[in-house]
């Protein structure tokens, strides 16, 4: 039972736990225990998926159940290398976040996190467009509530802002989805939203250009690309730490995943039409966000911009259709997620200790709290792409891919590393060193916090030192997909 419907269990275990505990009106202790147990169970299950995953096998663990037959909506889930990587990431981060928020006494917080997990993992594995849309919207709700209810600053305003901007994207995506379904109905006489069925359609060039724009708007807002980013800094600034971690490490990456899965899955050739635009936006974003990060006095907002800068790099990577850039992008998705969740958790811990995330009011931590400083510096540096951490490998591969495309592109791409070094080192200097100008007591990391952070450190080091061990999980499938895209793109 557990293994047969393993993906379904991974998706719905948190939701079912939350619903049961909610109906039983459980107290906060039971709720915590339930959430943590469910997160560990899903983690174990996703490891089982990884263990029995065949890295040459294409789409696996397929489950195809009819759901709303009249409209051709079905419950189809499955994993391939792309989604497996993200699924592992979610289920790996969830227990860590639960340990982070262990002292949280507000029940709504825990319920929202469980709902969020269901939404995110559902969006990752669903292969039916309407099902994907359902989960895509579902994961927005908890974020909306968590920012608006448990956030800080102008939380109500900022949560409304992120909601409206993201919904604008999803609505444009919905229009494309409905139209694609109709095109399938027109061509084959039945409604279907299953990705595999839809891939058989030959779209007219003009139609597909409009349809792709619907999807791209949704993903561009989620990533966010330059020009679609106005929600980001306020939302990251207001959101509580677990929500920030999920937003930067999972939801932003889902934008990338969406382009990969639905963009390349349905419209290989049409995407080329948008490639120059998106690559320009990504390049400009890369530099713009880096400059904003340098000037930002608020740590959360600074790393929001830094994370957007790196995501622009990834977005650039997937439009450079060569294998270096692609495997670099996928690799960087994972390692950046690990590093950014690490740094955002550290910022959360900073706030708990010093009641401030402004660089100006911090300083001199290194001499008083060495363990804290070590972890903080480690995560910050792995964001900057310190050799020996996974981020370095990903970034390097994308830059190599860019150079392969054109030296000018390569040059500009390489500036991310440089600018990241700039703002990270300057930030470290001001936050960790210098004179202590804060009256608070300097508490070092407790054992719980060290245990919570060390898996991230270990994984970051491992991905940095043995990249080929991790890449073999997805490389062969990525090459197959890439060949498909390149061979189809020739016709244009």
């Amino acid at each position, binding site marked *: 039972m557990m293994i047969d419907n393993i993906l379904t269990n991974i998706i719905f275990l948190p939701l079912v736990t939350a619903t049961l505990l909610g109906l039983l009106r459980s107290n906060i202790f039971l709720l915590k225990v339930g959430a943590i147990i469910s997160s560990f169970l899903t983690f174990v299950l996703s490891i089982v998926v990884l263990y029995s995953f065949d890295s040459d096998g294409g789409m696996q663990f397929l489950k195809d159940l009819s*759901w*709303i*037959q*009249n*409209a051709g909506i079905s419950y189809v889930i499955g994993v391939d290398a792309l989604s497996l990587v993200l699924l592992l990431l979610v289920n790996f981060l969830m227990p860590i976040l639960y340990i982070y928020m262990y002292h949280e006494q507000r029940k709504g917080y825990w319920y929202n996190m469980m709902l969020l997990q269901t939404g995110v993992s559902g969006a990752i594995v669903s292969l039916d467009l*309407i099902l994907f*849309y*359902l989960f895509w*919207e*579902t994961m927005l*709700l908890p974020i*909306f*509530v968590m920012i*608006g*209810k448990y956030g800080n600053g102008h*939380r*109500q305003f900022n*949560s*409304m802002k992120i*909601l*409206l901007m993201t*919904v*604008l994207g999803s*609505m*444009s995506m*919905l*229009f494309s989805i*409905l*139209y694609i*379904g*109709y095109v399938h*109905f027109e061509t084959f006489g039945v*409604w279907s939203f299953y990705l595999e069925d839809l891939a058989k359609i030959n779209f007219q060039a003009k139609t597909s250009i409009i349809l792709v724009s619907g999807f791209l708007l949704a993903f561009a807002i989620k990533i966010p690309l330059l020009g679609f980013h106005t929600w980001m800094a306020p939302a990251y600034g207001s959101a509580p730490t677990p929500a920030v971690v999920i937003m930067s490490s999972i939801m932003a990456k889902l934008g990338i995943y969406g382009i990969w899965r639905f963009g390349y899955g349905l419209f290989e050739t049409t995407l080329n039409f948008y490639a120059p635009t998106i690559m320009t936006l990504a390049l400009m974003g890369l530099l713009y966000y880096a400059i904003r990060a340098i000037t930002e006095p608020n740590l959360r907002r600074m790393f929001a911009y830094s994370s957007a800068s790196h995501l622009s790099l990834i977005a650039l990577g997937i439009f450079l259709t060569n294998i270096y850039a692609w495997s670099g992008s996928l690799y960087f998705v994972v390692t950046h997620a690990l590093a950014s969740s690490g740094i955002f958790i550290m910022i959360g811990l900073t706030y708990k200790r010093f009641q401030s995330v402004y660089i100006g009011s911090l300083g001199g931590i290194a001499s008083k709290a060495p363990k804290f400083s070590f972890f903080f510096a480690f995560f910050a540096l792995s964001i900057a792409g310190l050799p020996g951490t996974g981020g370095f490998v990903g970034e390097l591969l994308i830059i190599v891919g860019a150079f392969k495309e054109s030296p000018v592109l390569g040059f500009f791409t390489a500036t991310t590393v440089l600018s990241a070094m700039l703002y990270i080192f300057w930030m470290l200097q001001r936050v960790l060193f210098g004179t202590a100008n804060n009256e608070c007591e300097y508490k070092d990391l407790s054992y719980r916090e060290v245990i919570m952070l060390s898996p991230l450190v270990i994984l970051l080091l491992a991905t940095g030192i043995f990249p080929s061990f991790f890449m073999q999980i997805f490389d062969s499938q990525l090459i197959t997909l890439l060949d498909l895209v390149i061979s189809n793109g020739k016709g244009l």
Partner: protein
Amino acid sequence: MLEQFLNALPMALIIIGAFWMLLLSRSTHFTLDKLNFIAVSFVLLSVLLQFVLFNNESSKFLFEDLFGNTFILDKFSKIFDLMFSIGTILTLLINRDYFKSRTYFNGEYFALLLFSVFGMMMLAHAYELVSLFIALEIASLSIYTLVGYHKTKNISSEAMLKYMILGSLTGAFFVLGIALVYGAVGSTNLVEIRDFIATKDSNELRLLILGMSFMGVSILFKMGAVPLHSWLLDVYHGAPYPITMFMASTFKIAVFAVAIRLLITLVDISNIWMEVLQMITIMTLLGGSWLAISQNYVKRMLAGSSIVHTGYLLIGISSIGLGSELAASSVMFYLIAYFLSAVGAFGILSFIASRSSKQMKFDDFKGFAQHRPYLALAMSIFMLSLAGFPSTIGFLGKFYIFTSAIESKQIFLAALGILTAFISVYYYFKLIAMMYFYESEEIEQKLPLDSSTVLIFVMAFSVVWGGIGTSLIPFVPGADGLIDIARDATKSVG
């Protein structure tokens, strides 16, 4: 003959109940609660009978040898009958506390409500224009009175006057339309009108088209489509909560039942009106959104948003006119979806209103989730459904409407519909934000488990079930079953 009486019994029970309530209303023996119970039991009995007779297709028309083809007995009208009677039961039961909390209610209220339901049921069955008009007026007149039920309150009386004068004016258009149609066809029966259209060429149809256009004005007024919407906000605001709920959910459905039936009858020539209708739809969607955004009162926001929902339904209506096969059933599904969500939302408002004298602006909802967590959850579900969030029935409703619009090549309307759905996220989520994102001084209150709260939660559950449910529970149609029923019903019209 006995068979015929049985077919008439569901409607007859309602009208008997109405007169019975009229008699009982002067009696001092009966409290409002008892009268409510009697009214509910009449409607409930009728509902049970409708269920029993649902698949009985022994005769196509009611008392055919007596009335001719005046009242049709098809699946379409039976579904609408069920919706009206269930809507009435919900209105009566959910608002029990509200009736008790206001002194101006008395027994006649129930009689008027039942008369109105009788009118609506007749409306769904009417297959002839004059009886259609009579049915519409029976339903409307009772509602005019109900809107002004709070006699001493100024906005209530204002609302009644506004609604009655404008409503009667457009009612006159309807009569004029019937006269013109009669002048053209020589009959007011839909069967004969259809034959007339099929046999004559377009030159001879002018008078008929003119007549039908006049009737369309009246129907669009009752729907609240935009150039004819000016009454709607004030009337919804001025009416007592139960009446607003009844109008927004049940009466609106009745008007759409007429529209669907007429349009399917006229489908051969319906192309003529489609450009005008599309313009009206665009205005309704945009104007309704504008009105809904700019309101401070939740009730007025819901009124404004009900105009937007009319806009969505009009998209479906014009898809019917353009010959989309799925459109009629998608309009029906949307009506069910809107019915469930609107009844729930207004039910919660009435629940709150029965316990306080607040005016219920958005600000009054600050911290609502803290002292009434369950009701806030239910309200959020209704708001999500009205906004068309996936996993609720409202999403599927929009899904069907928009796909049928795309199917009939109205890409622009589908896109505009999706855009207004995006705008609607703002005003619906504003309420959710008010409920959840602010602290309140009041402590959590215990939720009374009575008919109104239980029904509200049943509605909330069915909103979710209608969005994701499959045929897991026997006899309870899920998302899949409902659209099947709707398709079945619309097939019986043509």
